[in-house]
C-alpha cells in the first residue's frame, strides 16, 4: 500500500442506511455490541474444607459482586465472567448460575451485565491442577471465539482461590501441580493472561508454597475469608486493564490487596 494512491474501489463500500437529514439528535445511530472484552475466570476451591461459614461467605460475596458489576457502566459491558470450581464432584465450569456438564458445548463466559452468581456447596477433593488446566483452556478458546467474531479484547485474568493443597481424585496429596509451573510461566511470559493465586483461611505454609510457585508475582495469603475484597481487587484490576495500565499498577493494586488496605480504588 505504501508508495501508491489509496483507491476507494479497493475498500468495501458501506452504504448509509438513513439518508433523511436529522439535525437534532444522534438517536438513530445503531451500535453493535462490540465493546472490548475482558475475560475473567474465577477458579474457586469448593472442597470440603470450605464447608460452613467460608462457603456461605463466598456465596454472599459473589452475589454482591455480580450486582456491583451490573452497576458499573463500563465493566458491565466489557467483562465476561467464567467460574470454575474444584471440589464436590470434581472440576466443573459454570455458565453464570448453571453448572455445565463435562463436554457440554458452549462457552462458560457470561457478559458481566448478565452474570448471576452460582450457589456453591462445599464438598469433595482439591483438584487444583486440573482446574487451572481448564482455566487456561477456556481462556484460549474464548480468545479464538472473540477473534473470529472480530472483537477486540484485553489481557484475560484468572483468579485462583484455595484454602488447601492440591489432591488427586481420591483426596490424596498430589504433586501434579509441579508440571504446571513451567507451563504457567511460559504462558504468562507470552502475556496470554494474568494469574492471581490467593490462599485463604487455614491454608498451610505448604499450600502457600504451591501458590508462590504457580504465581510468583501475584500470590497472597489472606486471613479469614475476605472474598468481598478479593472480588473488588479483580474489579480494580479489570479497571486498570481497561485504562492500559502498566505492570507496576497491577503490582500496586495487588500489594494493597495483599496487605488488606482498602485503598486500591485510589
Amino acid at each position: 500500500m505504501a508508495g501508491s494512491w489509496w483507491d476507494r474501489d479497493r475498500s468495501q463500500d458501506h452504504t448509509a442506511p438513513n439518508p433523511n437529514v436529522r439535525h437534532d439528535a444522534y438517536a438513530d445511530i445503531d451500535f453493535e455490541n462490540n465493546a472490548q472484552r475482558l475475560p475473567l475466570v474465577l477458579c474457586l476451591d469448593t472442597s470440603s474444607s470450605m464447608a460452613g461459614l467460608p462457603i456461605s461467605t463466598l456465596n454472599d460475596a459473589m452475589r454482591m459482586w455480580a450486582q456491583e458489576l451490573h452497576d458499573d457502566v463500563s465493566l458491565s459491558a466489557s467483562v465476561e465472567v467464567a467460574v470454575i470450581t474444584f471440589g464436590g464432584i470434581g472440576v466443573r465450569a459454570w455458565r453464570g448460575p448453571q453448572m455445565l456438564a463435562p463436554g457440554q458445548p458452549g462457552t462458560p463466559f457470561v457478559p458481566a451485565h448478565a452474570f448471576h452468581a452460582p450457589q456453591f456447596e462445599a464438598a469433595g477433593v482439591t483438584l487444583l491442577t486440573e482446574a487451572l488446566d481448564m482455566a487456561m483452556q477456556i481462556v484460549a478458546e474464548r480468545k479464538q471465539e472473540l477473534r473470529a467474531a472480530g472483537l477486540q479484547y484485553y489481557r484475560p485474568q484468572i483468579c485462583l482461590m484455595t484454602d488447601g493443597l492440591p489432591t488427586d481424585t481420591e483426596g490424596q496429596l498430589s504433586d501434579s501441580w509441579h508440571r504446571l509451573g513451567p507451563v504457567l510461566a511460559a504462558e504468562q511470559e507470552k502475556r496470554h493472561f494474568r494469574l492471581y493465586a490467593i490462599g485463604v483461611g487455614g491454608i498451610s505454609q505448604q499450600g502457600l508454597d504451591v501458590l508462590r510457585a504457580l504465581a510468583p508475582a501475584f500470590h497472597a495469603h489472606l486471613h479469614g475469608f475476605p472474598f468481598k475484597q478479593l472480588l473488588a481487587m479483580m474489579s480494580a484490576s479489570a479497571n486498570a486493564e481497561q485504562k492500559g495500565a502498566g505492570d507496576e499498577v497491577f503490582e500496586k493494586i495487588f500489594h494493597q490487596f495483599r496487605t488488606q488496605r482498602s485503598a486500591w480504588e485510589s
Partner: protein
Amino acid sequence: MAAAARRGTWRTHGISVEGYRHRREGLPCQDAWHEASAGPANARVTVLAVADGAGSRPYSDQGSKLAVRLATAYYTDRVAAAPPLGDRRGNLAESARAVHRLLADTFHEVRDEFLDRTRGDGSGRPDDYATTLTVVVLAPDWLGTVGVGDGFVILRAGSEDGKPQFHLLPQPAPASEYSNETVFLTSPEAPDWIHTACVRDADVDGVFLSTDGLAQAALSSAGNPRQEPNASFATAVFRSLDNPGPDPEEDNAALANLLRSDRLTALNADDKTLLRAVRR
C-alpha cells in the same frame, strides 16, 4: 475543548471528552485535537490531528496536546511549501511516492521535536508524555494520513443510489494481541510503525479522524475480523456538520452528550475525540 471554524473549502469541528473512568476519578482528558490551515485561498492546506495520551503515563495529557500542535504546525508549513502535485499529474506512481515521502519525512520532524521538547534540559523523560498521533492533510488535490498508534480515519466519498459511501482508510497491523496496547510517538520502535496513506479523489467531501476511544462506535466488525465504517455513526456525525444548527454551542453540546452517553461508554470507557471536516 471544542471549536468550529470555516477555513478554506472545509468546515471543521473537533471535540475531546474525558472517558468514564477519568470522569469518575476526576482525572483530565488525555486526548487532544488541533487543526490549522495555511496557504492562499485557492490552494489552502488544512491539517487535522488527534492524539491519545497513554493512560499509564503521568504527563500524557500534556504529550497529546503537544503532539497535535506540533503536527499541525509542521504539516501546514511543509505541505504548503511543497511543489503542487499538478506538476506531477502525468505520473501517478511518482506523485504518490512524493506524497508518502512528504508525510513520513514530516512525521520524523514532528517526532524529533516532540522528543527534544519533552526531554527538555535532559532531565525529562519523553516516555512520561507518551501519546499516539494521527494526522490528516487536506491538500488542494490530495488527502493524506499519517500516524502511529491506533487512531483511525474515515472518508465520505461517492454515493450509490443517492446514499453516501463511507471508507475506512487502511490501518497498520495491530501492535499487540490486546486492544489497549499500541505504539506511541515516543516508542523506540515508532519509526518502524509510521503508517501513511494518500488519496486523490475529487469526490471526497467528508473526513473524520478519531482516537481509539470511538473505534467500537465508529467501526463495525459485523461478525468478522475485517473492520468497516459503522454507516449509521458516520451518517449522523457528518450530517450534523453538513447542516449545523443556529447555535454552534448547542451543536457541540449535543455531540458531547453523545460521546459521554452510557451507550458509548458501554462500548469503550476511554477518552473520546472526534475531528470532522466536510466540504462547504
